[in-house]
């Protein structure tokens, strides 16, 4: 792998950064330009991640070996420099992120990007942070990308302003700063024991850690893990999540669906590298804790879904259920289960994102007054207040039969989230249950996981049916609200991706199984980083 292809690995980070730098040079009056720039960047990011996915899957006929590809930043050899690694898992997460980025940004063009300044710049910075977190192979660099994505998310949570958003974001920011401090403590403890921050190098050294240092290392890993678990929204560290996501503007919440998955990804990555079978005394660290905490999260999320009084609350608690399912499955482990949980991760993230996008048009139908009042009240009287009143007409074609489209999309979302056949949500849940039954001895925790997964699906179905009848079937006095094509297209696109996931479930599962096998035996990852050739050298 040579030349420009090598540099493709760093593109998901550098491209949005450059575009943001250009965007900052223009003020809000050049909104059309920013829209074109932002949207074309997200399209380019999708293309790049698809290419990276193609690359790591391996194509012998094109001379590309399957396996992880490593990019040495500044051409410093690993483990002294920072490395970016793209392997099957990170390539998949990149593609998922950038798909959500594209659909959410497209949706935001309907009007949301006008309710505050610098929406596009913050949005792309968030994408850059998430992409970086998926690509990096260094724990401290991971912290930096976490901070990039968090800083951008603080701005996006506040986007549109209003008392509720400000109050929710105050909690969100305070919690995340505290979490970042835990992250730093964990990193420092791991460094003090092993003397390295490179993930692959850590994996090699962890088996050699002395018995008396193991406690220190495991405490460090546990503190680090808590930082990611807060992001993933594990019970009892999850009370902020539904409230914050409900307060965010819909396209922002739709993108935030990937943020809880960043925590899951890191836990999956680190438990594969650091606490896999080959890591001596530290092997299988905290797996039981993950299982019980995951189960508790699902139960909490299910109760939350049943008691939610608005659809955004349902969606927020569904994010918790999804995180809990993934964490419990990571804790139980096993190759087949890992493949199934990856499929579930993709399917549930797409479905939640689509739900967040469809909630607003559906609820707008029910009461139009509230929504309009909620969005455009700038707090800061800065130079952009004029820009808000410049152009208030709806953009795009207004579609008749609003209710039919919304209802169809809503039912589609409900089926996906509840995991009913024939959609991809069902395939994902079926794969998880099937993998749990494949174990020679089915542990009590596996039975509990199966039970709560099924119950959470039922609860989701009840809540969605109740909300659907209430919002869509109740006769309204006034005519249905207008729905623009710009809002329908991204929802349709996300649901179409879910359909593709269902139709192409065979090849998708094959890819996930390959990913799970690579996670189970991380030697390929460790060797790829350790032997990464510097510029101009030939790979050994």
């Amino acid at each position, binding site marked *: 792998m040579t030349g420009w292809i090598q540099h493709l690995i760093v593109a998901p980070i550098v491209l949005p950064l450059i575009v943001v730098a250009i965007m900052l040079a223009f003020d809000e009056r050049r909104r059309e330009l920013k829209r074109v720039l932002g949207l074309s960047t997200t399209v380019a990011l999708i293309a790049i991640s698809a290419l990276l996915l193609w690359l790591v899957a391996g194509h012998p006929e094109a001379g590309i070996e399957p396996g992880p590809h490593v990019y040495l930043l500044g051409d410093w050899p690993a483990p002294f420099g920072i490395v970016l690694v793209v392997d099957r898992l990170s390539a998949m997460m990149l593609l998922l992120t950038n798909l959500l980025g594209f659909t959410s940004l497209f949706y935001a063009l309907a009007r949301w990007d006008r309710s505050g300044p610098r929406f596009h710049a913050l949005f792309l910075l968030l994408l850059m942070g998430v992409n970086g977190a998926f690509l990096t192979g260094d724990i401290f660099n991971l912290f930096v990308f976490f901070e990039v994505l968090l800083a951008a998310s603080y701005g996006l949570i506040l986007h549109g302003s*209003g*008392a509720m958003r400000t109050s929710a974001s*105050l909690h969100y920011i305070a919690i995340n*700063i*505290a979490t970042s401090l835990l992250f730093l403590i964990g990193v*420092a403890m791991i460094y003090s024991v092993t003397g390295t921050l490179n993930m692959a190098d850590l994996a090699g050294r962890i088996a050699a850690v002395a018995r008396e240092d193991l406690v220190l290392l495991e405490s460090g890993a546990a503190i680090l893990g808590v930082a990611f678990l807060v992001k993933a929204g594990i019970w009892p560290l999850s009370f902020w999540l539904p409230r914050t996501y409900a307060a965010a503007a819909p396209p922002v919440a739709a993108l935030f669906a990937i943020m809880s998955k960043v925590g899951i990804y890191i836990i999956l990555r680190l438990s594969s590298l650091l606490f896999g079978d080959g890591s001596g005394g530290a092997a299988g660290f905290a797996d039981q804790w993950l299982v019980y905490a995951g189960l508790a999260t699902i139960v909490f999320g299910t109760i939350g879904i049943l008691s939610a009084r608005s659809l955004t609350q349902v969606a927020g608690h569904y994010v918790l259920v999804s995180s809990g399912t993934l964490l419990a499955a990571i804790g139980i482990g096993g190759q087949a289960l890992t493949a199934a949980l990856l499929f579930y991760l993709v399917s549930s993230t797409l479905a939640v994102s689509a739900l967040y996008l469809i909630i607003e048009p559906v609820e707008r139908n029910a009461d139009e007054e509230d929504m309009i009042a909620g969005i455009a009240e700038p707090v800061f009287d800065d130079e952009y207040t004029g820009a808000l009143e410049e152009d208030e007409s709806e953009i795009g074609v207004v579609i008749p039969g609003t209710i039919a489209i919304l209802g169809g999309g809503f039912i589609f979302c409900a089926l996906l989230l509840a995991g009913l056949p024939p959609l991809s949500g069902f395939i994902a849940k079926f794969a998880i249950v099937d993998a749990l039954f494949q174990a020679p001895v089915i542990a009590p925790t596996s039975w509990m996981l199966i039970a709560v997964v099924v119950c959470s699906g039922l609860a989701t179905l009840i809540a969605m049916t109740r909300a659907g009848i209430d919002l869509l079937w109740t006769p309204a006095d006034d005519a249905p609200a207008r729905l623009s094509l710009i809002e329908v297209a991204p929802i349709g696109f996300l649901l179409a991706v879910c359909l593709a996931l269902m139709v192409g479930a065979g090849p998708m599962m094959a890819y996930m199984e390959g990913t799970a096998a690579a996670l189970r035996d991380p030697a390929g990852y460790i060797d790829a980083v350790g032997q990464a050739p510097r510029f101009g050298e030939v790979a050994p």
Partner: protein
Amino acid sequence: MEIVLSLAIGILTASGLWLLFRPRTFQVILGLSLLSYAVNLFIVAAGRLRTDAPPIVGKDTPADPALYADPLPQALVLTAIVISFATTALLLVVLLASRGLTGTDHVDGEEDDS
């Protein structure tokens, strides 16, 4: 030196945590700042405490690791300081916005009457 540093970290953490759980937004911010100082000191300690040891290899001195302090934690601390400074500044702005919108400096945006 170890006992002084660990006492400093301990006191900063304890005060920071206490302030973090107070109901006023300004106390929360002070708490977070104190906690970040504690964490910065902690990172320095993670690279082992050395006095009179430079972190950079000189031109004429031998490249023997025993003569030098670990430069990596110092680089990490610099990054951590910058990031926590920036996020604290942002939190201050949000604090002011929240105070302006809700009329109270309670973290929940409403006074607890009970």
